């Protein structure tokens, strides 16, 4: 888990965020907060496929303690690479992790 670098108010709640602006505590997250984080990333509304990716990332994180790489998303989330880039333009793994309330992925792939 990353360290808190600052605080941020989302929907009236004060939440700890890390140096990348991602939530520090997975437990602070809920679907409404995801919606707000998505808006910050330029995604007006999260659809079913966004949720498929977000839920997959949260599941993998709770099992492994790591945010998924783009390859893991491509191979295992059920959403292919092209669609991932369409859903989360300019950086699917990084953006999906942020919206999912997780730290940014550490791997290079």
């Amino acid at each position, binding site marked *: 888990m990353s360290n808190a670098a600052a605080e941020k108010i989302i929907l009236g709640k004060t939440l700890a965020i890390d*140096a*990348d*602006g991602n939530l520090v505590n997975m437990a602070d997250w809920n679907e409404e907060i995801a919606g707000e984080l998505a808006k910050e990333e330029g995604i007006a509304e999260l659809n079913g496929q966004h949720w498929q990716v977000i839920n997959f990332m949260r599941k993998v994180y709770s099992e492994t303690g790591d945010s998924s790489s783009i390859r893991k998303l491509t191979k295992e989330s059920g959403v292919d*690479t*092209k669609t991932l880039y369409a859903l989360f333009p300019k950086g699917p793994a990084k953006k999906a992790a942020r919206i999912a309330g997780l730290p940014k992925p550490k791997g*290079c*792939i």
Partner: protein
Amino acid sequence: MSQNKVVENNYEPIKKVSIIVSKGSLEGVYPGLIMANGARMEGIEANLFFTFFGMEAIINKKMDHLKVATVGNPAMHMPTLIGSLPGMSALATHMMEKEMEKIDIPPVREFLEMIHDAGCNIYACKASVDMFHLKKSDFCEQVDDIITVGEFYEKSAGASIIFT
């Protein structure tokens, strides 16, 4: 306060890269692929250009069989006579592929599909194609075009060029 990462300096972020892959060994090909994929993951526009033996990575019949060089590579810490034994390169390649799979680095073909699907353009060098007597049909389907060095520079307008 900005919601995004605190800007630590005043430099312009990189917006576009053109990556040239000129070597055909496994360790010669991967850095370029990792950089191209990494660029797209950061929202950076990317072109991949394969030239000379780097084209081994996009030739259908060869791309699944790239090998690690065990001779002429001091960083392998392997005496030349041992490195030249039959099967040594295959063994080193197998070991490296196993380690790469562990950290989610895909095999070359799968990696190229991923990179292309991520919106990176993939090109083969016209001079090398002519020299090796190759045709567009010799390449994997992710290769968008065979282009001249002039066209490469045109497509690289505004990009940082990275030679590997």
